[in-house]
Every structure is written in C-alpha cells, then in structure tokens.
C-alpha cells in the first residue's frame, strides 16, 4: 500500500490535526516555501503535470492540463476551490476541511503561485458550518504568520484567500453555476464556450478545482510529481479518498491507492457486507454514476477502466447494496434528489427528472402499467439520447443525464424488479427478493 497523502495527519494527530502548530510539525507549509522560494511558477505547474493528478470533483480531468488552458497574459485570474460537496454519498471534502484545513490552504497557495493568481476563493457548502469555521480559522492563522497576504515567504508573491459560505443548492457544485453563485447571481450553469479558464469569475480567467485536488499539492511540491505518479495506475495515479457507504460493516472515508478493486475496497476497508450478505448492486462513483451489479466487483478503481465499463469514479462515493435492497425504491430516491436539485433551466431536466420521479413513485405505489418500462426508458432517452456513458445530453449541464443514469442502468441490470411493479404483484421487496437472480457477492472477511 502506498503512503497516505491526504489522511496521514488526521490519523496521526486525531485531536489537533487542524491547528497550525500540528500542521507545522508534520511538514506543514514546506511545500509552499519550496515552491515560492526555489521554483518558478512554470516549474510548479510542470510538477503537477508530471504527477498526472486528475481532478477529484467528479469529471477527473487532469489538473495540470486544465491549468494550461488559462490564457497567458490576462490578469487578474482566479482560483476557485469547489467545496460544495453535495453529491449524495460523498463526504470526503468535508472531512478534509474539518480535519486538515491547512493542507487545503497550502495547496491553494501553491496552486495560485503556479497559476500566477493573487486571489483564491473557497466556496463551501452552506450546511457545513464546522468545516467553514475550521477553514476560516486556518486562513486566519496562515495570514497571521504571513502565508496568506503580501510578499509570502519574503518573495514578491502575494495571495488573498476569500472563504465563501454557499446558500445550499446542489447545482452550485457545478463549476459554472458555482461561479455565478459566487458572483452573486442565480446559481445556474452557463453555456460553454466560453470556458471558465478563459472567462470565469467576474469574467476573468478562472480555474475551478475540488478541495481534495488541492490537498494533494503540498505533497506533490514536496516530493515531486514523479513520486506521485508512481502510486496508483498509469492513467489514474495517486491515492484517493473513497466514501464508502451502504450495506457494508464499516462504512467510512478510506484513502486508498487507485487501481485497487472494488472487491478489495468492500472486503478490506468495508469489512464485508452486513450480516454476511452478498453485494447485489453498487454505485461506483456518486449518485450520478450508472450502477453496477456484482459482476463488476473485480474492476479496478481506475477512472479510464471505469469509463470503459460504462460508469465513472465520479466524486468517489461508493454505495453498496446487499441482496435485500429494493432497487427501484433506491433509484426513486436518487431521482427524487435530482428532480429536487435541477436548476430548472432546461426543459428536459426540469420536466423530465420530475416526470421520472412521478412515474417511479406511481409504480412503487402499486399503480404501475405495462407500458411504464418503455416510458421510463424513453423519457431517459429524451434527456440523454442513446443512454450511454459518458452520456449524450439534451441539456446544458450533466445533471439532467445524471438523473437518468440510475434508472436506465438498473432497468438493464434488474429488469425483473421493475417488471414486478408493472404486473401489479408488488408487495414488499425486502422479503421477496428472488434468490439466484444476482451473481455471487462478497462475504465479510473474518
């Protein structure tokens, strides 16, 4: 197992990992000093490129490449850190902000140096009061000792950090909606082009990165991009925090090396399925991802491999369901979330997500009709034509297609569970799950 990049400090110093003193004792801000005193911005950028680090917010875009899209000579430019973490099942950024806020601050300063930006914004989900306070405090502590502000580390690099508490809409995690919201406008995703790297916050070039993405920067500057790239797989280097939830014995946040299989994640870190049960289905990468059944347990946690298998690692949320799970009901709950969180701009998402929710609800209420399965498919198809992954979309942002992914992927994997709802024979699924319909799952390792 590779070394822990992100969670070592909170494991070593569970009672004060978030303080500046503790952080200092664990190589804190050495990466920043190394960057600003010994390296040019271009060199820092080159290390990030060499690390192969891919964004941890969902899309998995290579961070070094993204930074390269910023036009050379337009200033000011901004770094905006996405701490809106609202994807159901995802709870890693909150932990990082609560327990290791200084690594976020240091990562931001290093990134700003590389990007030649003098102002960064951290956009923190409104409900995360504790994380917000810890981050604000960390920024204050860092400012007090001269890491934030003018002439950092005696160089002529200056950088301000503004912490913003969001107002509580999932869609504001989408980067262009986030930028609108941050600037005081309605949190609606924007059409592209222009891309944020060219015209983002206040119409200036802007890089948006996830909290976890940022927290890797101190390590990468201290140890070098090459060392980082040695961990994980070739196309998905490094470690990543997975938010494991659902029917496992030990749900939680686990930092593991990319390339590990789902089976290992469930058995070794999750301590197996509850009550010795079997995995029936799992969501491999956040509520937006198409679901897998147990036949995919040996797929490695690698962004490209997952893409080829028809889903994604997304935000790193992995949700496990055992043989007793009521699949249509679980899907309905996710669709309800998306319908509620649609910004309402595009017709297919505003109307379609809600319709999907209502059809599923009606079916679960015992009023399913034979034509409903085709209808569900077709409604999904009108939001995300072709029902493939990565999805085609008739919408502005990927939220619309996200709402369809759980529906069509599970109708394909578990058609009988839906058929039962349209023949009127539906009672409670928990007790009547047909055995043998699912492939064998993992068992708890003793």
């Amino acid at each position, binding site marked *: 197992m590779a070394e822990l990049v992100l969670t070592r400090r909170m494991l070593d110093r569970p009672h004060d990992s978030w303080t500046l003193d503790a952080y200092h004792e664990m190589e804190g801000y050495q990466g920043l000093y190394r960057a600003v005193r010994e390296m040019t911005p271009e060199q820092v950028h080159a290390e990030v490129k060499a690390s192969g680090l891919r964004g941890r917010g969902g899309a998995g875009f290579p961070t070094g490449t993204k930074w390269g899209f910023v036009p050379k000579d337009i200033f000011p430019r901004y770094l905006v850190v996405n701490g809106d973490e609202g994807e159901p099942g995802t709870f890693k950024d909150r932990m990082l902000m609560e327990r290791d806020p200084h690594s976020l601050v240091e990562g931001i300063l290093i990134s700003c140096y590389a990007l030649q930006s003098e102002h960064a914004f951290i956009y923190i989900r409104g409900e995360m009061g504790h994380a917000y306070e810890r981050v604000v405090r960390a920024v204050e502590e860092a400012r007090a000792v001269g890491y934030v502000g003018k002439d950092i580390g005696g160089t002529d690099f200056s950088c301000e950090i503004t912490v913003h508490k969001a107002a509580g809409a999932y869609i504001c995690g989408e980067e262009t909606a986030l930028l609108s919201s941050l600037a005081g406008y309605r949190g609606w995703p924007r059409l592209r082009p222009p891309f944020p790297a060219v015209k983002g916050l206040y119409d200036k070039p802007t890089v948006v990165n996830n909290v976890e993405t940022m927290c890797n920067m101190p390590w990468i500057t201290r140890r070098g991009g090459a060392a980082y790239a040695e961990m994980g797989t070739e196309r998905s280097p490094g470690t990543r925090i997975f938010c494991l939830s659902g029917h496992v014995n030990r749900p939680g946040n686990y930092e593991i090396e990319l390339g590990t299989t789902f089976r290992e994640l469930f058995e070794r870190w999750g301590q197996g399925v509850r009550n010795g049960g079997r995995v029936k289905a799992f969501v491999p990468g956040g509520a937006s991802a198409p679901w897998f059944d147990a036949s995919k347990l040996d797929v490695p946690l690698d962004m490209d491999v997952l893409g080829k298998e028809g889903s994604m690692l997304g935000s790193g949320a992995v949700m496990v369901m055992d043989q007793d799970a009521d699949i249509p009901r679980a899907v309905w709950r996710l669709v309800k979330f998306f319908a509620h969180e649609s910004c309402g701009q595009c017709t297919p998402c505003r*109307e379609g997500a809600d319709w999907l929710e209502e059809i599923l609800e009606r079916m679960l209420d015992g009023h399913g009709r034979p034509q409903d399965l085709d209808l569900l498919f077709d409604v999904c198809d009108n939001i995300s034509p072709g029902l493939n992954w990565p999805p085609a979309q008739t919408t502005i942002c990927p939220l619309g297609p996200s709402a369809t992914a759980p529906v069509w992927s599970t109708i394909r994997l578990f058609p009988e569970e839906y058929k039962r709802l349209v023949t009127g024979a539906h009672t409670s699924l928990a007790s009547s799950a047909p055995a043998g319909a699912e492939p064998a799952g993992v068992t708890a390792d003793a």
Partner: protein
Amino acid sequence: MPENDTLSTVPISLDGREVQASPGQLLIAAAEEAGVYIPRFCWHPRLRPVAMCRMCLVEVEGMRGLQPACYVPVKEGMEVRTQTPLVKKVQEGVLEFLLLNHPLDCPVCDRGGECPLQDHTMSFGPGESRFVEEKRHFEKPVPINNLVLLDRERCIQCARCTRFASDVAGDPLLEFASRGNDLQVTVFPDEPFSSYFSGNVVQICPVGALTSIPYRFKARPWDVTIAETTCGGCAVGCRGALSETRNRLIRFLGVDNDAVSWGWLCDKGRFAYEYVGSENRLTVPLFREETAAADAFSEVSWAEAVERIAEQIQEVKGAGGNIAAIGGARLTNEEAYSLSKFMRVVCGTNDVDCQLDDGLPADFVAGARNRAVINDFAKASVIVLAGPDLKEELPVLYLRVRDAVVNQGVPLFVIGPPQSGLTDFAKKVFDTPAAFDPVLLPIAGDVVLIVGRQSAAQDAEAQSTWALGLSEQLGERVKLLPILRRSNVHGAIDMGLSPSLLPGRVTVDDLEARERLAQVWEGEFPPDPGRDCREILDAAVEGKIDILFVVGADPLTDFPDPVMARRALERTSFVVVLDLFPSSATRFADVVLPAAGWGEVSGTVTNLEGRVQRVAAKVTAPGQAASDAQVFREIAEHLEVDFGCGTPEATLREIAQVAPAYQGVSLSRFRGKKGKEGVLVGEGRVAPRTSSPFEKDARPLGNGFRLHVGRAFWDRGTLVSECPSLSGLRPGPIVRVHPEDLAFAGITDGSSVRVLDEDPAGRLDLLRTVVADERVPLGTVSVPHNQDEPFVIRVGATVTLERID
C-alpha cells in the same frame, strides 16, 4: 443585437445543401434566412441567447453531441443537420416535456390561435400525451403590474420576459424564483413590474402566460384585421401592427425593423389606442352662439362650418387683418403640408408654428448637418446626451441608447438633469452644457451628439447654439441628432409649420424653393419669417390676431405661460380649434371642428431621425370627424383656391415635387424588405445659424433652487387620460428634490411644499407633495409637467421651497 454584416458571407452545408451565411451569425438565424425554420421557444432575435428551452438542438459535424442552433455561431464549411432522426426525436421529446405541465386551456387563452406552443405542437409534436400524472398548479392569473397578468401554469420558463426586463428595459423586476419543477416567474414582494415597457413581455411571451389587461378576452385572432403602421405617441416613430375588430382598435403590437424600434413599444404607445375609441371624442362641428354665455355651442353641419370660416377669412383678409396657426405636430406629413399650404396660399401668412415654445428653434432642428441616425449609436466612439430624460419622453429611443451603452459598451456623457436608467452607466454627468469639457472626448471616432430641450425652463436658443459650437469645434466627427418630443413634430417642421421654414427644410426666403412652389401654389405669402408661437400669442394678447387656428394643440397646458395663452385666446376674435377631444383651448374657441386622428388617417410621418414611415387608417373616425387636410382643402376650395391635395397619395406626390429634402419620397419606396426601414429624407438648405459659447446658467441665488420642468411618461395628455387602462398611472402633482437639499431645508419626504418663483414677476406658485430623489442634482427642484393644473414656467427661473404644515 447588431445588424448582420451581410457584406461577407461564407458557405455552410445545411442538410446537405450549400448555403451562404455570415460568419458569427447564429445558426438559427442563418438557417432561417436560408429557408430552414428551426423550432425554438426561448430564442428571440433581439435578446441574448440562453439556449434554455432546448428545442433548437441540431447536429453539427465535428461537434460532440447535439448543439443549440441559437448559441452556435456560423463558421465556414460547417455541416449542419436539422432533420436527422435524432433531432426529430429530441424535438418531440422537448415538446412533450413542455406540454406535461401545460394546462392546455387554449380555448380561454388570449394566445390561442397565435401561439408558438400550439403551432410547434402541430408541426413538431408528439401525437398524444403519455403523461397521466397531476399537472403543476399555481394561483392564476396574478397581476404583475397594472397592465399585465401572469399565469404561471402556462409558463414554459423560457426567460424571454426576464431577459427583456433586465437586459433590454433595464428594469430587472421580473425574475425566476425557486428551481427545478417549481421554477416560476415572479415579481419581488411588494414591488410590481413597474416598467414603461411592460407590454413587450406580453408580446414576446411564446405562450399565453403573460397577457395584457387591456386586450384580455377582447378578440380571437381570426376575428381581427391588421395593418402595419407607425406609433404616433412620440417622435421616435416605432413600427407596429394595429388590430381592429368591428371598427374598434383593440391591439397594437410592435413590428421589428432594424432602423428604429426592433419590435419594441413603450406602454404608452402600445396601449394608447384606447383613446381613439373614447366616448369623449368630438364628433360634430360646433359653433359658439353669438349671444349665448360661455360654453354654449351649437352643432352645425360641415358645409355651414366651412362656409362660415371661409367668410371670416375673406373678411379679415379684406380688412388687412392677421391670421395665424399654432399646432400641427399631431398631423401626418400630408395633413401638415396641407395646413402649411393653406396658411401660406389662403391666409397669406407665415405666422404658423407647430411648437409651443417648448422645443428647440426650428431652423436648428431642420438645418442640422451630418445627422445621426439611431443605428449610429452602437457604432459611435462616444455618445453625448444633452436632452430631456429619454426614458420619460422618448422611451424607445432610450432603449436604443441603453443598448449601445450597456450592451455594446459605447461610452456615454450625460449633460443636464439625470437620465433615468442611463445616468448610472454614464462615464460622467454634467449639470449644464457650460460645465462640459470636450477635452474629455476620445480623440478619434464618431461623436453622436443628441440634443434636446432638457427642461421647459431651459433657454432653447442657448442650448442649440452651444450644440452648434461643440459641433464646429469637433468638425466632421460629430453626428448631430436634434430631438423633439411630440408625435410628428419633426414631420410638421419639415412641412413648413414654422414661421421661418417652407416645406422640405428650406427657409421662407429661399428663392429657388419659392419659385418651385409658385408653380404649384397659387397665392401670395411674404418672404420674411412670420411670428412664432410666443409672438403669435403676444400679438393676440394685444388684440392683433383676428383669426387663430389651434390645430391639435392645447396652449393652455403646453405653452410655458398658460395665463398668457388663456388671455391670448380670449382676446382673439375668432378662434378655430381642430381636435379630437374637448380641451381647455376648446373652451375659448368660436369654432370647434372634430378631427380624425391616428388610426383613422393614412399617410406618412417623419421621426426624429428624419425617417419617413407610413401610417395606416384602420377604423373610420367617429361621427363627422374628418381629416384636418380635408377641412383645409374644403375651406380653400370654398374660397375658390385650386388647392389640390385631394388624397394623401396626391399630397405626398406634391410634397416630393416641391419640398427639396423630400425629393424622391414615394409610396413605392415603403414596400418590400427595405421599405420596412422607411425612407430617410435628404438635407435641406437651411443655413446653419451662428454658434455662441454657452453662457453660464444663472446659478441659484440665496436659498433658491434651479427650476427643472420635465415631462413624465404618464401625464394628463389625451394619450393617457382618455385611455381607461392608463389614466390612473401618472405620478400626480409632485416635485422631486435631492434628499440632502431636503434635509438642509428641514423638509421631510412626502410633505407638502410651496414652490415659488424668486422673481416677483415670475408668477410661479405651486402647492405640491415633495418626493426625495437622489437622482435630482443638488440645488434643483424638478417638477413633472402636466400632472395637474398648468403653471407658468420662466426660462432660467429659480425658485424657493417652503414647507406647508
């Protein structure tokens, strides 16, 4: 949106067919020009594209996924497919989604029969509904202001109305609330959609979610006939389509043209058609009985009225008396020309004036060289605006200036009282022209200089000589736009309704013009300028005017000295008033003639740019009301003058023949695509007057405030007061003062004040409610004109404010 640059086009492939399109043009517009209609709801050619409805998705070779045609610009060689199975499936899908929650109450919807959602459903929609769930419900309809109702169940969330409100009108009072399936258009709590442009959202709403209260349930599209015309509400001259059913006007919609109005109308222009059908219209000729007490009129026949007026003229002329006419800005060009000709050849005088000493010198307006047109605004390097508050007085001109400044980034300097909606975007604001320093202007590029009368208390001579001085200083770079307010006042000046001008922007002493006129006009008239309105009224007070024609004007409200105007009418032995409604002037008339007006008379009008556009007759005038032109012709003919001008068409031909600036203007030029933009008149031959440096304004003395009298959008004019839907909207008798001035004077916002001219001879003495308004410059008292009883306005007046407890 800027005009399409059609100079250079590139080939693109559209459904396998090669067509030409302008690079940068949006695909949806390019396809439409090439004859391929891509369905859409949210896209509107005059609004910023948002690609929200997703109806216009098409496939573009080399671009991933479906592309909104309303957002993707044309590039050379692009391959676009609008008819593929995928595109069709998605269109059906979007329509089905839109119809899920739509109430389908078409039979009781004003939009039924002319609804894009209905039409698209027929052409592109799915056959039947697969939706068995409960539809969204909202309380309906809810008023969003005094003129517009919102039905959120019918709304398809296209954001046309919200974009119009914030981006075009600059009144961001319509917004979306909530999200997802709850997304709904709303106004802010306790804040109606107070906009002078609110009717436009009704027009551009692609469904019946926004309906206008005046038109509600009035007609179905198949019951009406429609004609294109030009609004007569002010001198902007917006294009519109006028609907009639059973000889009543019931609706006026904006029609897009590129030069002027882009399809927009202000609410006054849009809803004022109601006055045409008012019960208070004058319908029969009236004569004052010689012996009877005041206000005792008796009805006479037209023949008798014409005969008695003709007799009077003959008598007065025989005795060497004076005949004069004021007014005429309401008339069409053809009617104004007839009046102009009538005064010259029948009455033998140049004592005519279509302005009531409330505008600018006519020779300045008609003589301006190197004129700006509205489309120059967006191309200018800077706009200098020294005029009245455009939003209040020339509303759609305000929209066009606003677009240039806010959306196209053209810098703006404001000189004079603040411009609502524009001052905030100005680079700098100057209290008076004297304070403006041309050094601030960019060193290259066109300077558009918009000049109008800022206040009835402002010296119009000084304003125009200042503008000419600035123009001289800057030379060729200046494009000048002199602006007057009233309806067809620019056309009336062009037709010679000015003491110093003849038809076609020439002076009365212009030999060439006189010669040409002599071939057509039989009758003598003096070669020297006549009296202007003030001089006419002055002479009348002294008993020197024997016959006064008052044509569609009310000097008792519009002339800056209503007391003098009243005395003038009282002392004139024979006053003939031609108007649509009884007014304060008709009370002093000897003859009142019922006139036909807008919507009842066809012809042409000329807007403030000098653009000639057509007006249409859609209903017949009430009772015996007749076109003013017909009245003058009949009187002339009664006096055995061969007047000609039997029809508007014949009159226009004569105008083109004798009026230099109107040469070549003919009906055929208003046809076709180009004709939609009207015809710009040429330059005349009015010698530029001499300029002079602007004299420093009389700064307020002692406790005195500078008096500013501007027009408010909603006033007591007939356009408003005779429309049931509009008459309640005016702000009423108020004065506006800067809050700091109020605080200094110890006067609280909302209290009653007395406004008194500092000059004892000034006679201004008003009781008004004071409103604190920080847009009013310090040291100024701003009084909106024509809100209640008229008052005396002295040029350069300073006033005191006194609190009344």
